């Protein structure tokens, strides 16, 4: 088989799996789980194979055509796609295996695993897409899978609401995304990524600030940036493995992947907007995370914050690098934003999936308790979860020489080199990240158990622990790009690297912020059943809570008080004005033809037949020329 047919196979396989489950395995949850997990295993295997076989290709097949307008189903497999494919494959496999244990007793297991398969299909479509229309198609489809999986426990009102909110918030983003694609199509005559890049090199690309900003709307929705971030914390209503896969590692990162794909279309003004959106999201979400008591909500806000980091990194843009070559200085411009964002996306996918699955393990062990103030002391009872989770925490707070350390430093350096205020805000965010992460870690695992559930907690089976171990290993090593096979060099060569004094400054900064945040978090919060911050600094606590609730409050107000009332008003207007006045008017109009409207009330067959006959007779008269116009 050629590499292309491997790619096609990888894309189609999960769709077939989902179709089989939907058609035949609705009542056979066990078999459905096996089918879906085997599929995920095959995807992971072939993904790694595809990435390692250093073969890159593009190929497209026409999907539909009207005149000159054609949409193709295409594969653009470069280093960027290869990297994303491997992430999706590995995290997907871990989550499938974890789900085998976590969802073992679920009544609707078949629907769950069918949903995972359809998600894998949609996500792989985004990874492979060689044009923006195709990306949009799969973009909407991941939204659909996310909707189905958030709504898995649909008998809960909260799950139903959350799934709806996620889909609608994403649609708001997709509104802009679609406009951007259509605009790009008419301005540049193509939305094929390779052709756009070629036009960029040939300097024939038509730029407009609107195109990248419209396209960015899609990323704002999917990657949950301000002000559309509100759906992601609510999406935690879905089963925890889903949160790990979709709402931490892969789908929400698709926005960053998409931005990297359309880097050629970027203009400075758009990048500035993107940079500030990302920075604001990073800081805002970190502030929100501090007051959360639900283990998954802390991780959700942390995800928002890290996604903000990636978006900010992308928005910081490219870096010019001057080399001495044979005594002559050479300046090259590298797309450092792409490198830094994708690097952080990679490491984050592993350590955040690890922590989400770790929280799943905790929730499973504590009989579905999610409140960290009712946990504590899990270190002794769930040692493997504890140690792997600890690696995840260490990685995200930038503990030296773990995965997050390298990728976060790359972003901080880029910010340092390009924009000081952003650098300061991102450094502050890093302090907060260490703070709330250590708080979470301490309250969950250290101290004494604060509830019966916690004191009877137990480690899950192999299906729960194996994925944790694999992801923990990746969280340890994923930062060493030098050890990565050369296959991802197209991305990793773009990572900004600090030299000499810059290197020292960044190293000290990142170490400093980590130590300040972590030690404050560790010493300030006590292992008590109530939040220490709420006890000691109630003013700050409620201010942070209010900050968190502000967006939801505004949107709820808009939906309930403005949108709904407006809809009712327009509806009323329609009933009274249009239906009332115009239908009367029309009846009168018909009356002019000498066919009194009252005849219509008769409602018997004859009346209708007369109407019909009249039409025929009229036609006949006109046609034969008895009556002429």
């Amino acid at each position, binding site marked *: 088989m050629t590499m292309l047919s491997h790619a096609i196979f990888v894309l189609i396989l999960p769709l077939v799996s989902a179709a089989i489950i939907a058609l035949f395995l609705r009542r056979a949850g066990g078999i459905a789980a096996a089918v879906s997990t085997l599929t995920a295993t095959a995807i992971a295997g072939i993904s790694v194979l595809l990435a390692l076989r250093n073969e890159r290709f593009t190929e497209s097949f026409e999907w*539909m055509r009207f005149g000159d307008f054609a949409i193709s189903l295409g594969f653009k497999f470069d280093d960027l796609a290869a990297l994303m494919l491997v992430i999706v494959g590995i995290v997907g496999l871990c989550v499938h295996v974890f789900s085998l244990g976590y969802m073992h007793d679920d009544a609707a297991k078949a629907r769950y695993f069918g949903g995972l398969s359809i998600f894998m299909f949609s996500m792989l479509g985004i990874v492979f897409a060689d044009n923006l229309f195709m990306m949009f198609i799969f973009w909407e489809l991941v939204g659909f899978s996310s909707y189905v999986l958030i709504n898995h426990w649909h008998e809960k009102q909260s799950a139903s609401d959350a799934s709806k909110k996620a889909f609608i918030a994403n649609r708001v983003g997709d509104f802009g995304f679609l406009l951007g694609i259509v605009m790009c199509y008419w301005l540049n005559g193509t939305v094929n990524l390779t052709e756009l890049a070629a036009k960029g090199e040939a300097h024939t690309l038509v730029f407009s600030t609107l195109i990248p900003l419209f396209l960015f709307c899609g990323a704002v929705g999917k990657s949950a940036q301000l002000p559309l971030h509100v759906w992601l914390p609510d999406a935690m209503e879905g089963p925890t493995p889903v949160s790990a896969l979709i709402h931490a590692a892969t789908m929400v990162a698709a926005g960053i992947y998409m931005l990297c794909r359309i880097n050629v279309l970027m203009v400075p003004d758009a990048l500035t907007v993107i940079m500030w959106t990302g920075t604001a999201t990073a800081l805002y979400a970190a502030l929100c995370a501090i007051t959360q008591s639900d283990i998954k909500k802390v991780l959700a806000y942390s995800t928002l914050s890290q996604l903000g980091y990636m978006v900010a990194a992308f928005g910081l843009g490219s870096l010019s690098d001057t080399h001495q070559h044979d005594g002559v200085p050479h300046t090259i411009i590298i797309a450092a934003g792409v490198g830094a964002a994708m690097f952080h996306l990679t490491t984050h996918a592993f350590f955040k999936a690890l922590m989400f699955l770790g929280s799943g393990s905790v929730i499973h062990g504590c009989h579905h308790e999610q409140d960290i103030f009712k946990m504590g002391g899990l270190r002794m009872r769930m040692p493997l979860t504890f140690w792997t989770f600890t690696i995840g925490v260490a990685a995200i707070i930038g503990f030296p020489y773990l995965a997050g350390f390298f990728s976060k430093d790359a972003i901080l350096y880029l910010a340092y080199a390009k924009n000081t205020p952003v650098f300061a805000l991102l450094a502050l965010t890093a302090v907060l990240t260490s703070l709330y992460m250590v708080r979470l870690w301490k309250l969950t695992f250290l101290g004494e158990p604060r509830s019966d559930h916690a004191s009877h907690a137990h480690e899950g089976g192999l299906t729960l622990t194996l994925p944790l171990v694999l992801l923990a290993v990746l969280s340890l090593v994923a930062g060493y790009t030098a050890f990565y096979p050369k296959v991802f060099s197209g991305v990793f060569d773009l990572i900004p690297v600090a030299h000499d004094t810059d290197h020292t400054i960044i190293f000290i900064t990142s170490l400093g912020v980590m130590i300040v945040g972590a030690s404050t978090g560790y010493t300030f919060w006590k292992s008590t059943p109530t939040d220490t911050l709420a006890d000691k600094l109630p003013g700050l606590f409620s201010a942070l809570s209010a900050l968190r609730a502000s967006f939801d409050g505004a949107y709820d107000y808009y939906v309930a008080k403005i949108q709904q009332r407006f809809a009712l008003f327009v509806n009323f207007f329609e009933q009274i004005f249009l239906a009332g006045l115009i239908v009367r008017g029309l009846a009168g109009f018909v009356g002019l033809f000498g066919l009194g409207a009252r005849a219509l009330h008769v409602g018997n067959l004859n009346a*209708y037949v007369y109407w019909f006959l009249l039409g025929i007779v009229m036609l006949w008269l006109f046609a034969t020329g008895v009556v002429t116009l």
Partner: protein
Amino acid sequence: MSQLPFDPLLVSIAAPLALALAIALGLPKRWSVLLAYGAFAIPVLMALHVWWHFTATPLPSHGYAFLTRYDTGLSGLGISLHLGLNGIALPLFVLAALVGLAAGLYAIQSGAERLKIYLMLLLIMQGGLMGVFASVDIFFFYFFHELALIPTFIMVGIWGGRDRSYAAMKLTIYLTLGAMVSLLGLIMLYVQSGAHTFDLIALRAHLAAHPLAATLQNNIAGLLLFGLGVLVSLWPLHTWAPLGYGAAPSSAAMLHAGVLKKFGLYGLIQVALPLLPDGLAHWAHPLAWLAVIGNVLIVGVITIAQRDLKQMIGYSSVMHMGYAFLGIAAGGIIGPGGVVLLMVAHGLSVALLFLLATAIYHRTQTFAMDEMGGLAQKTPVLAAFFVAATLASIGLPGFANFWGELAIFVALWKFSPLITALAVAGVVLSAIYGLRSAARVFFGPSTDALAKVTAAHPPVDLSWKERFPALILLAALLFIGFWPKSLTTPVNAALTARAPAAATK
């Protein structure tokens, strides 16, 4: 091209009509029901046959295949029963057959009162619908439409739900008015063309050589837009639709909203666009603004406010017709191409939604969404079908509707970016009402009102008799959704072939 020893188009028109006649002549009920399966299935077999063979052979320059002519004694007036399909008629012919089968099967299992008469009317409708899209002759195109329309009024009046007599009256006033005004337009076209023929192929050839004067084109196009616009519920002449569909029995609503309503759009694309290109272009801007502000935005917002499930579907259907008008206004190849796709997709999805709404009603004894909730726990398959149909109708990729909407949006940008932005905003509105209705009916805990109903009648999941017609529609939506070329190839060929005429605007 067709290896059949008979004319598949004539057979698909005649089979339902013949059975209807037999029922009228007193065929016993048992035989009527039994034969009805066949009479609804035959058009589908014929449609699949012509679909399969359509692209297999090269078409003559006028783009029509399966042409046959039957003398009806009116040839002196330039009228004959001239049957044939081009790339635009073919998708709708297939649509009519599929929705007809689904509606027929659903009617048979419904066990409606006076089932025989009900089936007879439905069969007349079905025969008429097959005729509308198989006719090359404008006279018969119109005749078959009337033939299908009249049973609709009667079915609403007799088997309708709440407010049926008012709904039947309103439906009749509006639709008859629309039909008469469009008839006026068609006759003007016949008289003014001077070709002395109702034959579309001959008319097109004649008008290509002798185009009508601009004023004349504008006037005829205006008449057709008004008349056909009423039939397709162009804002603000749409109010018959939600009311009528709310009252109509499910199979009649399926066939009318799904297929018959497309007559107007089909007429605009098949007749007005090639024969009166300048006339339509003249009205394009007012039409687009009416459609985007009225149908898409205002009706979109109104749909959000609906509490009655069937009314909600009716309004959402009016909203989607707005996109169809926008595609026609945008013109070119992409716009009308998108409209043909959307017509087929919308026909399938709205028929599916009406079918499922009735299935829901049988379990909840109400259409009021406030009194439902949590039904998915009892009827997971019904919930899955409904969610799929809803997502299809709000344009999720993977379903046919997406391609139609997408092509229309692309075409529209060239016409007016501002209108495009407004139209795309409708996508958010449809997500709101679509997902909200799915959530209110199926998800969350069940309401007290529903608990009372289900305590008395424990709801059962979708039975196979209900599931089968739904499956036909859903499968077609997915098939086109995943393989749009199956339809876009013939549509594109037909539109490209006449592009010079359409491009003069």
